């Protein structure tokens, strides 16, 4: 790894244009959320907070934000719980057909969200269950399971196995080994998995669109806003979502500082 001016130059030449590309739409988005006019294009007039006022006084928006938070938290919590148990089961026990089980767990990740959503839509209507936030929540657990599973499974390493074996040798029961050794070791991985799921669930559109009815989540309402009125209100919505997600990301950072570098996508 080089240091000094060569590194600085490489950094500027490579990272510069790429960062401009990455930040361009976000910068425009945030800037024009303060635009004093209906059509969010240059020249910029303002600044004005009218779109934020309108948005935050809109029941539809605040209800949808709340619905998104609830679905994200609940589905991520359940998915993380199930995934942790499954990862523990597969990593610390000799289960026949382990490869097949792992493959099955990862399958929803490999099949696109539209297929998952459509499958649930068809299945639910076949048994007469209506569209609702619950249905969307169930869909989100299906989508979150593989993510959480990958993250948690990746953290079962040999050092930990040695600690667990040592504990067992010293007479600890299975349950004690799990609660006193495994889970604390995995704490940051579990939290990372949970937050990763929350991030994906919070912004997930297609499954929520197909399966929810009158309690739509935020992305569904935002698309609906996009389809029913040309004004910077959607810019304001996007900016708010950004700020909230940012706070969650900062939280993620602070929480995993103890364990050391661990990338959100595991593998």
């Amino acid at each position, binding site marked *: 790894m080089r240091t000094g001016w060569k*590194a600085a130059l490489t*950094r500027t030449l*490579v*990272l510069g244009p790429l960062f401009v590309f990455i930040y361009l739409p976000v910068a425009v988005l945030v800037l024009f959320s303060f635009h004093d006019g209906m059509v969010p294009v240059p020249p910029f007039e303002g600044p004005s907070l009218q779109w934020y006022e309108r948005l935050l006084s809109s029941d539809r928006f605040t209800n949808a934000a709340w619905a998104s938070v609830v679905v994200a938290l609940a589905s991520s919590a359940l998915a993380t719980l199930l995934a942790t148990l499954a990862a523990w*089961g597969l990593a610390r026990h000799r289960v026949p057909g382990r490869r097949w089980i792992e493959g099955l767990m990862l399958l929803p990740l490999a099949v696109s969200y539209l297929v998952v959503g459509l499958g649930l839509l068809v299945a639910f209507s076949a048994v007469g269950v209506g569209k609702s936030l619950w249905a969307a929540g169930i869909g989100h657990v299906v989508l979150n399971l593989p993510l959480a599973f990958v993250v948690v499974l990746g953290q079962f390493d040999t050092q930990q196995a040695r600690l667990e074996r040592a504990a067992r040798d010293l007479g600890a029961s299975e349950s004690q080994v799990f609660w006193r050794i495994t889970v604390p070791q995995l704490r940051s991985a579990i939290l990372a998995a949970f937050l990763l799921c929350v*991030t994906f669930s919070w912004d997930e559109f*297609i499954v929520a669109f197909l399966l929810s009815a009158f309690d739509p989540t935020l992305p569904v309402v*935002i698309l609906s806003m996009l389809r029913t009125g040309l004004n910077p209100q959607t810019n304001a919505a996007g900016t708010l979502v950004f700020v909230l997600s940012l706070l969650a990301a900062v939280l993620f950072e602070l929480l995993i500082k103890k364990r050391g570098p661990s990338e959100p996508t595991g593998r």
Partner: protein
Amino acid sequence: MTLAATATAPEQVAARRDARRGLLLTAPALLWCVVFFVLPFATMLVWSFYSGGGPGEGSLGLDNYRRFFTDASYTSALRYSLEVTLIVTVLSVLLAFPLAWAIATQVRPDRQRLWLMLAVLPFWTSYVVRSYAWLLVLSPDGVVNQTLMTLRLITEPLELSFHRATTVTGFVHFFVMLCTLTIYASLSRIDPRLQLAAADMGASGWQTFWRITLPLAAPGIASGAFLTFVVTIGDFVTPQILGGNNELLLPQIAMLQITRRGDIPMAAALSVVMVLCVSAAYLLLARWITGARR
């Protein structure tokens, strides 16, 4: 991993109990997967073989699939989807690699995570709104055209919106960030001693890169590419907002069937086609994704 053939009875009993306990722990997750993913998928698969309103209304047969492969609107949608997805995957990886590499090698180790976070920050704006923001950025009155005109590089605004390139830009913007994460994960795990050793043995920087760095980064590249492929081919929002309905992709046609035509079996058939494409991609990339494991 298997027990020796000369295992004693108590060992066999212990092994069975171990397996049973493992299965018990895995059961809840598996059950959820089977009930809420496998069964619905199977139901959808069955529905795709019915024409008309579904089981009980239409007739059983390959009607939907036949319609798919004979109607130019559908086959062109498949072609467009594959073309766009491949272009997006290649471009995303090509742009993400230098970004990940620069962060992994040109930045101080203690600052790398910060730069990584900065690089993927826009990940967290609403996906829907971000696509819409690109439309505004690329419009004749938008930032790109206005800047180019102010710099006197062009006199008339360029037509940047409602092309395939617009959709590709929207996708690539998202997936560059995703691939940066996966590629960085692989790059940062490479033991620098391997690269030093290669240099000691006389390899040039280029050779070290091709023979050591790139192969070791392959799992990150492959998993990023696979994720990009899977998500792009199934995405409805980006082409809908940016494409101007000029080249309808598979997910858009599928959504048309669901919303406007109420033809769920046809939508199911389209989804099955999508899954087949994804499986093909997986079989191609599997070797590199799981390559370095064990």
